[in-house]
């Protein structure tokens, strides 16, 4: 089974909660555990918040965030692919931005852990960015793998 959705939302903080809940609702078809669902919500919140606080901070005509999700499901497990795109200022040095605790907004109580959290909470993660054009975060998560391994271990024991 393959499922797909696309969301186009205004880059305003009111939409942070909506965006992560919408992706979580979409992910439900893959029967995630509560902890997997919580990981997905957190990762989406990080990426969407970055679009709002960093990408469009300098002002721009189109302040929108695009979220695309794909879900693949087989008998044993599922996989959720998420793509979060903005047309904002872009990131000059992506490697440096991915470093834990690196932030360009220290004065606003930012910790620089957003990308690190996305990487930790998802199975795969990558960023594409071009200065002045925008940023695209791609991440995916395998669903039900941990649970199945646990089951297999119990059966083998």
């Amino acid at each position, binding site marked *: 089974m393959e499922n797909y959705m696309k969301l186009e939302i205004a880059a305003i*903080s*009111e939409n*942070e*909660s909506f965006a*992560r809940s919408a992706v979580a609702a979409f992910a439900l078809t893959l029967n995630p555990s509560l*902890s997997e669902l*919580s*990981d997905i*919500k*957190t990762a989406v*919140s*990080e990426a969407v*918040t970055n679009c*709002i*606080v960093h990408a469009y901070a300098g002002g721009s005509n189109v302040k929108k965030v695009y979220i695309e999700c794909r879900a693949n499901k087989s008998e044993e497990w599922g996989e959720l692919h998420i793509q979060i795109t903005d047309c904002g200022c872009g990131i000059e040095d992506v490697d440096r931005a991915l470093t834990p605790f690196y932030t360009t907004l220290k004065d*606003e*109580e*930012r*910790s620089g*852990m*957003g990308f*690190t*959290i996305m990487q*930790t909470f998802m199975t795969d993660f990558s960023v594409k960015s071009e200065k002045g054009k925008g940023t695209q975060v791609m991440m995916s998560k395998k669903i039900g793998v941990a649970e199945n391994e646990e089951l297999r271990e119990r059966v083998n024991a």
Partner: protein
Amino acid sequence: MKILFNRRNDALYIKLRGELDEHSASGARREVDRLADLNADCEQAVFDLAEVSFMDSTGIGFLIGRYKKFNRYGVKVYITNPSQTTDKILAMSGVYSLVRKL
């Protein structure tokens, strides 16, 4: 996000209820900082996270910021009852090295 509080002797208990993200943080920041000013004479402030239904990296900055605020008054800060996900976020970002978990 709702902020509930309760002062018992030398301790201020602050209960956060709801979602702590970039959208809700500014209001929560204002309210807790006002509480810190009003309770500058207490010895410890305990953040109860049991009813935080969602938190992302904004919560890290929020908690470290409040730690600094209370610290200026010489008030010790603690965290209690984080959910599993919140605990993972706070542990990986080193928050517990500044603000101990009870």
